[in-house]
């Protein structure tokens, strides 16, 4: 089973409960208004936030299980996290950003090389640029490429169209559709936009 999540997150006095399972294949959208805790959920799956209860399994690997005292570190979870705020490394070139996770992954876990990623995302001409000089759409594609090249077993995408202007939306949407259709990678996709979700998602989970 791609995603099997049942957790409780606490933010101060606020208590957030999440529980869902997904079938194999396609893209699962987490849909809900801003402030519903969608990003918190992705952070918990990535290992950047610790749930107070519950378990997180992805592709039958336990990432977190309170009862069994399992809590893998973020670097052990092999998740490709495309952050809403991108988080490209400002002191590294686009090439070094893309290859950051690729270099860290053991060779047998890499399933994409740089050239394939460049062709896939159409960012070959940006390699020597710094992230600060990229447009929103370019930076978004680099962020997606960096996640794919790290050899992840699943993708977490947090509002990937948020920092993209209207003309570039179609471009990014096409890229995401290709990832969904060609890469056999479980994807959790956070959005608050109904049209986006209707177009991309194989199933929708309301948060």
């Amino acid at each position: 089973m791609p995603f099997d999540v049942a957790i409780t997150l606490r933010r101060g006095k606020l208590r957030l409960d999440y529980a869902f399972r997904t079938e194999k294949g396609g893209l699962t959208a987490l849909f809900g208004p801003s402030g519903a805790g969608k990003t918190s959920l992705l952070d918990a799956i990535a290992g950047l936030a610790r749930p107070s209860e519950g378990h997180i399994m992805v592709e039958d690997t336990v990432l977190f299980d309170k009862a069994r005292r399992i809590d893998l570190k973020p670097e052990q979870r092999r998740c490709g996290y495309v952050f809403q705020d991108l988080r490209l490394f400002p002191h590294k070139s686009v090439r070094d950003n893309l290859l950051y996770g690729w270099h860290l992954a053991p060779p047998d876990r890499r399933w994409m090389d740089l050239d394939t990623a460049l062709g896939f995302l159409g960012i070959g001409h940006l390699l020597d640029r710094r992230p600060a000089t990229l447009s929103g759409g370019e930076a978004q594609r680099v962020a997606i490429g960096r996640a794919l090249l790290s050899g992840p077993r699943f993708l977490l995408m947090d509002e990937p169209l948020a920092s993209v202007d209207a003309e570039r939306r179609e471009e990014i949407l096409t890229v995401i559709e290709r990832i969904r259709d060609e890469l056999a990678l479980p994807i959790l996709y956070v959005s608050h936009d109904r049209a986006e979700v209707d177009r991309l998602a194989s199933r929708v989970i309301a948060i």
Partner: protein
Amino acid sequence: MTALTPEEWQVLVLSLKVSGVAMAAALPLAFVLAWVLARWRFPGKVLLDALVHLPLVLPPVVTGWLLLIAFGTNGPLGRFLAEWLGLTFIFRWTGAALAAAVMALPLMVRAMRLSIEAVDRRLESAARTLGAGRWRTFASVTLPLAMPGVLAGLVLGLARSIGEFGATITFASNIPGETQTLPLAIYSALQMPGSEWQVTRLAVLSILVSVVALMASEWLARRSGQGSAHHAL
């Protein structure tokens, strides 16, 4: 300016040795302190912060006197270091280096702390999800991003240590060839009548040392790639 006399060489070499050793000792300590103050939360943090800043606000003579009490032959730290490491400070160049390091420390910690606090921790979490452990994240993301502040701290500390006078003369005394650094040599020369030329030569030497140190730090900053990165941003 004619070539240096043997006495002037001695002063110059000693000054560089004292400042160099002071920086080598203070740099890692300053970074650790800056890190702890920037990232950790613990009871007594205010106290540690105040302690680190003390040499900045105290009259240097008082700092020298405190060092005398702590690191003197009968001081608690002085006795411990003499017995276990064979390190003595009083009337020795090591004492001058210690005084310079202590006086430089607060300036270094301040600059480094600010730059560590300015590092976006969300970039560190991004590195973690990409497979980097804590150390790798530190070495490849945090440290390079904090590097301008580390270098700025080093320059400030170096300038402070080269110019150190009050704590040094109080703690390590003014012994030619042992603890008489440039500022102390200038002070001694000033005490002698008819030594204006000697004072001038030493002052020019001191200016040269500072300029070279400044240029070296500029070169270092460029080489680390941070200079260009910052202009790009």
